[in-house]
């Protein structure tokens, strides 16, 4: 067993989770409070990765990321980044793939905050952002935790999208799920076991910590 797929997987999950956290707060806030007729459309688009086969998403991303497409050429010409078969490409793919796992818990959390909290804050002269960071987010900690954990775990477990746009390049795009597949293909079950067991233990520990924390905070609330 090599360490690089494990480190790469954790790196990808951490970066994706951080980006999605920052990105999802405004999206979730808008979805929870907007009365715009486009709300339904945006909500459907955000949820699409939940139901779409990862290979479909991966296929379209592969086409979009290729240097022939305008997205791929923009990233390559302007920013000097190659998206296909690169870590940057994996991050962008994972952000899109895991979007609903962050947005949906945040949206539910924001909706569960009574409207009067936000109204009270705005009558105190607070801006929308002050209200979000001082009042809304601190009162939905369990939703934040759910969003972060789901996104993190979901990114660690992704396979289809990574395989389509990342391929299997050691140190660059060979994450654990790919490494397991690779080991099984070359009939090296021992290696597959090692990666798989690492993932099982890692996931179990994450869930355990989350549940312990949740029980603790719910005790405080009552």
């Amino acid at each position, binding site marked *: 067993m090599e360490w690089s797929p494990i480190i790469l997987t954790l790196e990808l999950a951490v970066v994706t989770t951080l980006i999605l956290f920052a990105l999802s707060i405004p999206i979730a806030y808008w979805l929870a409070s907007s009365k715009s007729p486009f709300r339904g459309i945006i909500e459907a688009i955000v949820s699409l990765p939940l139901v779409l086969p990862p290979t479909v998403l991966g296929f379209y991303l592969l086409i979009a990321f290729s240097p022939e497409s305008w997205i791929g050429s923009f990233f390559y010409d302007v920013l000097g980044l190659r998206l296909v078969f690169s870590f940057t490409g994996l991050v962008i793919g994972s952000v899109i793939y895991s979007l609903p796992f962050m947005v949906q818990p945040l949206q539910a959390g924001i909706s569960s905050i009574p409207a009067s909290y936000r*109204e*009270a804050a*705005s*009558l105190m*002269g607070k801006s929308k952002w002050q209200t979000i960071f*001082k*009042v809304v987010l601190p*009162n939905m900690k369990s939703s934040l935790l759910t969003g972060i954990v789901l996104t993190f775990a979901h990114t660690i477990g992704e396979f289809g999208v990574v395989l389509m746009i990342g391929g299997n390049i050691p140190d660059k795009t060979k994450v654990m799920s790919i490494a397991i597949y690779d080991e099984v293909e070359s009939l090296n079950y021992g290696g597959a076991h090692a990666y798989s067991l690492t993932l099982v233990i890692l996931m179990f520990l994450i869930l355990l910590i989350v549940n312990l924390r949740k029980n603790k905070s719910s005790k405080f609330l009552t």
Partner: protein
Amino acid sequence: MISIEINKRLVSSDQSFDLDIEFSGENAQIFTIFGPSGSGKTTFLRLLAGLDKPDNGKILFANEEWFNSKNNYNLPPQERSIGFVFQDYALFPNMSVRQNLEFAMKKNESDQIINELIDLVELSDLMDRKPNSLSGGQKQRVALARAIVQKPKVLLLDEPFAALDDQIRSKLLFYLKQLHEKYQFTIFMVSHQLSDIYHLSQQIICLDKGKIMKMGSFEQVFLDNNISGKLNIFGEVVSVEPSDVIYRVNILSQNNLFSVIVTEELQVGDKVMLATKAFNPIVIKVENK
């Protein structure tokens, strides 16, 4: 001077009507909005605060325009200088009582007012507690203090004492009166309780289905002829026993039961005022059941 001339279509599942309010009054007064549920009282407060937008009309407060549909002007709630005590108090659970008060403070203000308010509504023992550990009356006091921290020009109270028992409510009325005397804001309060209104309010606005039915002092609104009673008690008829040509009526006022003889037939549930003039108790119906 506050001058309001607004119109808004209210649509709910069982009825829809136009909220149509034309009203002007002096600053620093206490106005009570009285009326059956679903008559637009809370909406009226929300329109004043800028939390909802009227369809048409204008709102002027002390020569400052808050809303005018003609030039599409709508001053955001942040800039209206309004303290609002919500029905659910809206205290922030993540902050202690002191933090709740501090959050309401304007930038660069001294916390002098916080210390003043803590004394006035007796919060010093609760400062480090979180709102979820407070009783209803305590929460109400914090909400009241928090609404005043920013020294608002207008204080809006949505059924502030609805869920509280009589002892606590009379104490809160006392606090509110004191605060009003000290800070001289204009108060608009939604209330169902005649006793609260009587003790507090200088002007009563009776709303029904979005229209102002009556407006004026307590006597003008609730009593047809002025009674200069020496003792006025408000209560509700709890039982009526006919006996020959008179009726024995039991009246419950807060926690006191009065048994009186009347000649007019009253219904159980009628709101009445019990007044003694010289040695004769007089009972006057003030509101039909």
